């Protein structure tokens, strides 16, 4: 009579303890390289690395097919930076990650068909020119220039977003629109425009709703 009773108590205790044995025994994840052009393990509805790569690749190809930019008799001086590239979206981001990739990609692909002006380095160049002209440093090897290069065209653009939420399901959606424009710095004519848009939707687990 005692044995079955003891057994049942032991089973009950084991069952109760089983509820406690929730040890977080995840082995962890070693560092792995992830292709930045693909969606990684952490995802959201904002602008991510694969979006930056896809949009800059598309803009780059589009810009190189524009004859006024890429096939002019005289290679135009182009300024590509984030100074006039505005973020009006709900995504916090470093705009330089977009414009830098665009400039580097264009510079490599253009092969001399466009000349790139590093306006974001203007201060650095001015300081060095002053040192050379003051005689503090020698004249180096390149011939002296009358002035820093001016720009023929400069990149402008805007990032905007439209967000929507469904309170019943917790579904969130964001439409992102990024426009790129190349502006003639004498006439303000827009000589090239490109647009990249995408929308993402996601639903968080119910424990967060």
């Amino acid at each position: 009579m005692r044995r079955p009773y003891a057994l049942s108590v032991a089973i009950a205790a084991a069952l109760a303890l089983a509820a406690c044995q929730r040890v977080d025994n995840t082995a962890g994840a070693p560092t792995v390289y992830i292709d930045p052009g693909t969606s990684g393990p952490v995802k959201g509805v904002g602008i991510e690395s694969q979006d930056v790569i896809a949009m800059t690749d598309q803009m780059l190809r589009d810009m190189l097919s524009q004859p006024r930019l890429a096939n002019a008799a005289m290679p135009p001086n182009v300024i590509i930076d984030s100074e006039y590239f505005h973020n009006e979206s709900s995504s916090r981001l470093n705009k330089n990650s977009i414009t830098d990739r665009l400039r580097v990609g264009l510079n490599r692909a253009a092969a001399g068909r466009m000349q790139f002006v590093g306006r974001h380095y203007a201060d650095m160049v001015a300081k060095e020119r002053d040192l050379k002209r003051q005689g503090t440093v020698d004249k180096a090897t390149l011939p002296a220039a009358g002035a820093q290069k001016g720009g023929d065209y400069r990149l402008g653009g805007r990032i905007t977003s439209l967000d929507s939420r469904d309170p019943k399901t917790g579904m969130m959606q964001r439409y992102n629109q990024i426009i790129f424009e190349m502006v003639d710095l004498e006439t303000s004519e827009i000589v090239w425009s490109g647009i990249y848009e995408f929308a993402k939707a996601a639903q968080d687990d119910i424990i967060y709703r």
Partner: protein
Amino acid sequence: MAAAGASRLTSCLVAAAMTVGCVTAREQETSPDLGSVHAYLDDKPTELRRHFFIAQAQGQRNRVLNDMRLGLATFALGRNQLSEQLFDDALQGIEAVYADNEQAKKARELLTREQVKDFKGEPYERVMAYYYRGLLYLRAGDFENARASFKGGMLQDAFAEEQQYRADFALMPFLQGWAAHCSGNASLAAEDFKEFRAINKDAPLPRDKDNVLVLVETGDAPVKISDGARLRIKRSGSTETARISWTDPDHPKDHPEDSAVLLEDIYRQASTRGGRQFDAILEGKAEYKSVADTVGNAALIGAILAAKVATESGPRRGTKRKDRERAEDVQQGAAIAAGGLALIGLLSKLTAHAIESEADTRYWDNLSDRVQGLTMTLSDKVTALRVEFQSPGGTMLGGRDIPIQRAGRCGLVWIKDGTAIPRNPRAPNSVPADIMASPVIIPAAPASPAALVTASPPATGRDSKE
């Protein structure tokens, strides 16, 4: 017989004791590697080292919560870079979408409490994380990202149960408009202020020439309590007002002053969210718990009655043998029934005890209760403002001189009444009660025996006023 009874009682008590304090490993604090933790703490503010140590020990489950608390504390200390890192990390956690996540799945289980999930905060806490990140962008003069941050915050407020309370966090569109104003985008600013005006009809809008934003935070953070399966919010703050005065070196004889107006009541935002979808799951758990408990009670009462029958003295002498045998059969049957019912009762009670239906009550405790503010036009020569706090009855509670932090075309003055450094390095309810009450001791670094050893008495109180 007495020994057997004692043995049974002991087994029952052991079984019951084993189920008490059923805490998952995720809720415990770990002991971080001392070498790396000391290297990590090296550049942290001295007054926050124990807090950072606890953040390391509590790991991923409380990562966002500790980031928020420490982000605000370092923001108040003027450690902008560190604060940026902490809020960026917090927002990364908030923005990560938990779909098919193992820990999220566990939190929905019957025998697991909601507390095991990674903390993301309630909407008001998430909005405030975006708010402070936005203020850091304002301090840095990055007005576009400041606006994006405030806008991102507003989106977190879109899930209130009642339509009227959805996306009504007026502070966010106000600051969006201010950021757009500072970046020179008048049309965007007008759009944002229109959105603000639709929520708040009283607070004055910034004038075109305004170039300084003053934000004054008063009161203590809303407190979360678990009302059974429902999460409730309590106000713990008072209602101070703020008067602002300054001296313009160009007009030293003038003593201009102004009052901050209420831009946001954080408690109101916390308490008008309504029920969460997850509350329905917790209520289901609570109902199951209650049924299991009732079944347990009924079975145990049945077991006692059956045991009484089983232990009643047998038939008297002189009764017929047949009657005696029948009575013995009844007693034996009652004994088996008592054992069976006791087992069912015990299991039901254990199940009821193991079901976790309490709402998660971890909360951001160094937040404020209200945000007041105003915008002003001040020359660059005015470098600081005096902010004085008053009780609702007009009694002066103290004041401080706060420098204007200018970046780009705008300046920011931010002040919190009271300290932003949490008294307890552990966030409220962030770990089981016994760990909450234990002192926080940073062990000495292995290489240097003279390294820092700090201990604090267990503290459960709230931030003290300065």
